[in-house]
């Protein structure tokens, strides 16, 4: 049951984020929607490594043989977050730069090139 729920949440978050990006009228809002979209990947990755009733994969204070969740997905999610933070920071810097030049963040008003 929890598996299905997590899949549904991941799909919903992904679609909602994409919808927000496609209808955005402000570049900062668009970047935040991008982060929302990215959150769906966290949910999905953590879900595939989750095991019911298992403990965190830190073995300093538990006996060997205790059920633990998959430590690989933790590493994957962490990498994903780091990469996402870099891209978000860069995009925010771009948005600031554009605003300084054009005093607007509306993508419709900012068409750089057409045709």
């Amino acid at each position, binding site marked *: 049951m929890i598996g299905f729920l997590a899949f549904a949440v991941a799909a919903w978050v992904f679609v909602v984020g994409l919808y927000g990006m496609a209808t955005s009228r402000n570049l900062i809002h668009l970047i935040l929607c991008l982060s929302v979209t990215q959150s769906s990947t966290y949910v999905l990755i953590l879900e595939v490594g989750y095991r019911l009733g298992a403990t965190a994969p830190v073995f300093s204070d538990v006996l060997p043989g205790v059920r633990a969740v998959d430590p690989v997905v933790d590493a994957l999610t962490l990498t994903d977050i780091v990469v996402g933070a870099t891209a978000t920071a860069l995009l925010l810097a771009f948005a600031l730069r*554009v605003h300084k030049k054009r005093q607007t963040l509306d993508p419709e008003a*900012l068409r750089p090139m057409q045709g």
Partner: protein
Amino acid sequence: MTPETLAPLAFAVPLAVAALCAAIGPFVPRRVLDALAIATGLFCTVACALLAQAATRGTIVHWFGGWTPRHGIALGIAFTVDPAGGALAAFAAFLSTAALLFAWTYYDESGPPFPVLMLTFMSALIGFFLTGDLFNMFVFFELMGVAAYALTAYRTEDESAVLGAFAFGVLNSVGAFLVLLGIALVYGRTGALNMAQISHALGTHADALIVLAFAFVAAGLLVKAALAPFHFWLADAHAVAPTPLCVLFSGIMVQAGLYAVARVYWSVFSGALGGHEQTLRTVLIVFGLVTAFTGAFMCFGQRHFKRLLAFSTIAHTGILVCAFALLSAHGVAGMIVYVLGHGLTKGGLFMCSGILLNRLGTVDVEQLRGKLSGEWVGIVAIALGALALAGMPPFGTFLGSSLIEHAAEDVGLGWLPWVLLIAAALTGGSVLNALGRMAFGWGPPPDPEAKTPQFESPEANQGDKGFPLMMYACAAFLIVCACAIGLIPRAASAALGAGERFVDRAGQLAIVLKETPGAPLALPPAEPITSSLASGLLAAVLAVAFAALALFAHRLPSGADATKVLETMLKPLRRIHDGVVTDYVAWLAAGTAALGTALAAWMR
């Protein structure tokens, strides 16, 4: 030193040098950093070439930290270098070196971040080609992306460059998320991230989850490869990115996305999806043809020369996707040779556009009308590049097309190469059309009512500084190499051998998981390329004919009307390339849904 030790060095050394450049950048003269970067590029070119050469004696597997498979189960991260991947990595390093050499005189003042970002970008490209681990591939995908966004917006005072980088960053990030969703689904099913291990665990049975995972991974990677309708970012980013970078973007980065799809298909999914080849082929060819003609039509009549070249890259992506879609060793061989030939040609053409921008301050074809008359080296280079884009013998693109032609006949799609030939000829023709206007002032004057597009500010220092020997030498060298590739004896059979190795799933499983020693590359006899000489020449003639029509049709009776009708027909296509990033995201979502639905519906 064994070739195995070169595999990690080829991507780690440029990263380390990039860090060093960032640290010492403020304290040393610019030329020191440039020289360091060029030396690193040369090192990587040689290292990857040696790797590729060693890989012909058997695929090289390097396990980081000595985490070799135990009892046939791979937990560690591996680089798996086969001849195709090694050759493309060497090519990426070679193009990076050429771009760095070009930038030597192109910029008066570039600032320390430029070599740092270029080296990071090159390192990510090399790692991307060599890795044998799915998640590792995603990490290199993102590293490549971040370095590329920053480089695209390198001239931060130019707002169109920043906006182009923004669209590029947003779309490629969504592409990366799609890849990651696919990887998560695969990991959930198999508990593995090594490609061979996943392939082994997936077996030969496909279900809905596997099809969905493949659709996600492929769609995400195809955003990088600029498949329609994921291609919108490319033209906006390429038109505004610094020229040395465009050489890498159009020459290898876009093709890296497609290479990754091919790699993931053959190394991971080919066992499970093997029974659905026909469906996959149909879907990919439809997308590929749409891409080829979208690019070709948008390319034709572009006023902005760099944007024109960018759309031609999209057209050639379509051709490459069709080559991959044949899903055969020969198709892969054709694809790889075509990537090399196209990358060299397009690199040379972008360098020529950079020289124009540098000397004349613009790349607007109409503003440059007749202004190119004295630049004979440039005119000859652009003309040869245009014919090479069309696929004229003996250029590398011709050899690639010839291999693709035979591969298409093998799977009963003899008509496909002829259709692709038209798209290639259109891109060559549009470059010739622009050249005719710029060099000789031919062609009808621009419509005075048409809105003059907004053009970029010159990237580099302007003004007459004499003949740009270094820059022309780089451009000419790339064009000469594009020709030389087509003339190497046995290049075709080496490519076919590399293609056979690339698609050999069982062989890869044995080498990676069971650590059986690899066999030397077989060199199957290639069909003589003379058999496609006719189609190659036809492509060149068509390119010239298209250009002549565009330049002189208005002098024919009712020619002007015909041109107008054509323009009106193309208007909707031009209108969707509107530069609004939100629209691009909507197209991406629609494209992913279309690709996923098509695969899921037919692959049940």
